[in-house]
């Protein structure tokens, strides 16, 4: 059923449809010509408004004329008109996309920056190399069950010497070697003093690691400072042997310098241990073949060690027939110098930022 218009004779209708097709063909040609002439985005918008604008668009108006046709013709003509509309809209959209892409490309060029200009970072500081080493060593020993302990830097004769089995006429006690603040008060000359405090506080089993500052009356030069850092380790338990000392140090050295590092123990003398041993480890620079760092020997001296002297155990109230233990000490400054290739350890305490900023 027709919804609008009046009846028209079929022959006239046939003519109308033909005219309509002719008209669509003409319109498509017109559009193709016009779109070819568009050069700006504004012209593209105008083109769109003129052809498919909701109120005054050419095709919109054309749609309105369809009402005069029979339903069958209206369907056919409407489809043709819709096809044309789709064609026009696609053409304009393509055109507009092209313009948008151009606009974006322009913007991107305009916004180009010099990525090689320096980054604006907050200049971060650096931890002191002694701290870096100390923390690494602490971490290793804590993971092996040791407790980190600290003791006073100003010590009495008893802790600094007597309890460590250092005889009363030992040169280390002299005013040439140790800083005194009174007849019986000195700056500690080794962190071994912490051993004694620890053993007095707690009964074995004991695993203690004591890092800290120590003082010796050395005039500063390329290899000496009157103050330096030591780490002292102590383990006391039942049945502890020299083998346990070797194993512990080897484990430490593997974690510190890598599993290929070898250790060597040779007899030596420190008053607070017996038997005593000097610990060497294979040079991390040349892996033991000999170089400047290890002075050609392939070995680097790490520090003193040994089985805790029975006098030391007894002084701390531990029965040496029941318990035994080992102790070891190493100098952080020297280790630092070796690891980083420092040729003058005075640099460690001069706090020149150009030096400090080299370590992370």
């Amino acid at each position, binding site marked *: 059923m027709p919804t609008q218009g009046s009846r028209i004779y079929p022959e006239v209708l046939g003519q109308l449809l033909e005219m309509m097709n002719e008209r669509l063909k003409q319109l498509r040609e017109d559009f193709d010509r016009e779109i070819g002439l568009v050069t700006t985005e504004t012209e593209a918008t105008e083109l769109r408004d003129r052809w498919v604008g909701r109120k005054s668009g050419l095709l919109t108006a054309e749609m309105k004329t369809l009402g005069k046709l029979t339903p069958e013709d209206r369907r056919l003509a409407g489809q043709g008109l819709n096809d044309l509309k789709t064609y026009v809209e696609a053409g304009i959209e393509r055109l507009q996309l092209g313009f948008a892409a151009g606009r974006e490309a322009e913007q991107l060029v305009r916004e180009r920056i010099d990525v090689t200009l*320096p*980054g*604006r970072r*907050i200049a971060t*500081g*650096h*931890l*002191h190399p*002694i*701290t870096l080493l100390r*923390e690494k060593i*602490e971490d290793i*020993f*804590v*993971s092996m*069950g040791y407790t*980190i*302990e600290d003791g006073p*830097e*100003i010590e*009495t004769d008893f802790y600094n010497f007597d309890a460590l089995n250092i005889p009363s*006429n030992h*040169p280390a006690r002299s*005013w*040439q070697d140790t*800083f*005194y*603040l009174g007849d019986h008060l000195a*700056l500690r000359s080794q962190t071994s003093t912490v051993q004694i405090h620890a053993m007095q506080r707690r009964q074995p089993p004991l695993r203690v690691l004591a890092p800290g500052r120590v003082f010796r*009356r050395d*005039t500063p030069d390329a290899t000496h400072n009157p*103050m330096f850092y030591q780490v002292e380790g102590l*383990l006391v*338990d039942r049945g*502890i*042997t*020299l*083998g*346990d000392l*070797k*194993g512990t140090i*080897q*484990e430490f050295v593997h974690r510190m310098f890598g599993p290929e590092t070898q250790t060597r*123990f*040779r*007899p*030596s*003398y420190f008053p607070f241990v*017996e*038997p*005593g*041993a000097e610990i060497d480890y294979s040079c991390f620079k040349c892996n033991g073949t000999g170089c400047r760092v290890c002075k050609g020997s392939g070995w680097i001296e790490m520090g003193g060690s040994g089985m805790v002297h029975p006098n030391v155990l007894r002084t701390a109230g531990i029965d040496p027939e029941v318990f*035994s233990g080992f102790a070891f000490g190493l100098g952080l400054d020297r280790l630092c110098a070796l690891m980083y290739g420092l040729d003058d350890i005075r640099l460690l305490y*001069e*706090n*020149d*930022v*150009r030096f*400090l*900023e080299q370590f992370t």
Partner: protein
Amino acid sequence: MKISYNWLKEFVDHNLPVRELAAELTMVGLAVDAVEMVGNDYILEIDLTSNRPDCLSHLGVAREVSAITGCSLKMPVIDLKEKGMPTTDITSVEITAPEFCPRYTARVIKGVRIGPSPAWLVARLESMGQRSVNNVADITNYVMLEMGQPLHAFDLHHLKGERIVVRRASPGERITTLDGEERELTEAMLVIADAERPVALGGIKGGEDSGITGSTVDVLLEAAYFTPLQIRQTSKALALSTEASYRFERGTDPELVSLASDRAAALIAGIAGGEVSKCLVDVYPHRKQLRDARKPINFRRARYTELTGLEVALPEAERILRALGFEIEAEVAGDLLSAKAPTWRIDISIEEDLIEEVARIAGYEHVATTLPGSAGAGNYLDGESGRRAARRTLAAVGYNEAISFSFVNVETDAALSDAEDEDRLLLFNPIDETQSHMRTTLLGGLLQALERNFNHGNRNVRLFEIGKCFRKSDGERPLELERLALVATGARNESDWLAANARLDFYDVKGAIDALIDNLNLPAANYAATEKSGYLHPGRAAVISIGGRDVGLIGQVHPRIATQYKFKQPVFIAELDFGDILTAQKIEPRYQPLPKFPTVVRDLALLIDTGVTFAAIESEIAALSIAELVNVMLFDIYTGKELPDGKHSIALSLRYRSLDRTLTDEEINAAHGRIVKRLIETFGAELR
């Protein structure tokens, strides 16, 4: 100690090539530092530990080689013919200070011809780095290097009364030693005297006018044992160290004295001619007591294994100890032996010493590595997580970590600290008078570091240090207080090329401390202006407190101090009682629900007196107790010529929000209006 490979072979006929010998010695505790080829010989440089003076000779080292290799030790062949008069007819020896000289021997060789030494002797001494003097002097040196016993030769006729008195020096007594130095002596020093005067510093150096000269004919040869302590003290007091004193102060063998004298006398007679007097004069008053003091020590096989993890058969332990000169006393039940240490081994007194002897010759390298059983978790030092957090926070905000000496210049320290003079700790024996006191503040070290950095052209410096400061106390030990200090100066951010000229100021350091305190999980710090610090700019200094407790100071270095340091740019410092901070009550983080309703921001610009502090403005606003006010942020302070004198413009951003509803414009306007009104009324501020 230098050891000649060829010379050593005279005492032990081993067949180790020099490199192997060096390695073997090193592994028994005689560390060979270097091997040098000299002519057809090798010289081994041995770094001896202080407990082994017995190895300060070829014979001593040969004994070690004998124990290592099992090759027997060959003592030097002494071909001594005593053809002269009895020694007691020529001279006499008296010891009045046996506590310093337990044994003194003398003999006379008459009719010697002083002259150059034979080539072999010169070569030996030279290979040891010693200069040849004359035949008699060279022989005394030779025997010392060979056997370890220092000897001295006098010209008999230069000794008044031709006799020897071994005594303490009288106070103020003087002697001119061989090196031409006149030395004043004390009663604590031993001299070898003749009938009238000192002729030698016993065991250290001979006197100038009593020694051998080219015209000497009759020689009195001294061989003695001096106690180590007196030698060390005298040598130190006179700043005089010799080959002889080096050996005596470490400890020589009192029983070697006569043998060494025999050896030297035989060589002198053989090389320089002359007749050796009959019977050595040997004054050794307490020989028996000294011998009896040497007690046998037990060596338990089980104890050896307990301590070293090594196993040893008792015959092997016995072999090692015998080779080292120990006398084996007894063997009980196959598991224990008893040994007496030789007189030259002053370092042996307990079982563990014997265990070390056996173990070091058996070889530490044979000790199998084991690990002690697990002992549970370890622990860091109290406060260590705080220390690590502090270090990393400060590094993250641009500060480098410094470490300074614990001793400082007292004036510098006093200028930067509130410690009283009587609280300070003085070193009795500083190396340097400018570092004579224990620090009471870390600032001295940091400013000194800054000075050095300026001298090296580093103008942008940010440093921090964590360390102990010291003060006297009534307790057994002084107080050791852990502190943390910062110093900052120069560019705010060197790498910011858009603001390259921005200098850091008070608020940068304050920000660093706020970051630190925040990362330590502590409540926010409060800053109160202070004019009381003598080293801080009175208008740019504040007391820092946390939870109502003062924990430190922050500010710009006072211009007066800056001038003393010749600082040409402002320097900012802060110091905290870090020990207190580490133990302060931490905040336990609790979840706060996130806001469900929108926040509205209102800005406010006020023209206000410059004397009105930000804290005062904040507290006025807080006094209104506006529940919807979330916070007040400062976003600008403007000072310009067009503003009235004494005024500046402060721009604030106020944020409003309610927990249970969306605020209406009317509600916000009302709250904001109250704030504006209050600030205008209280401070006479004007809206801009």
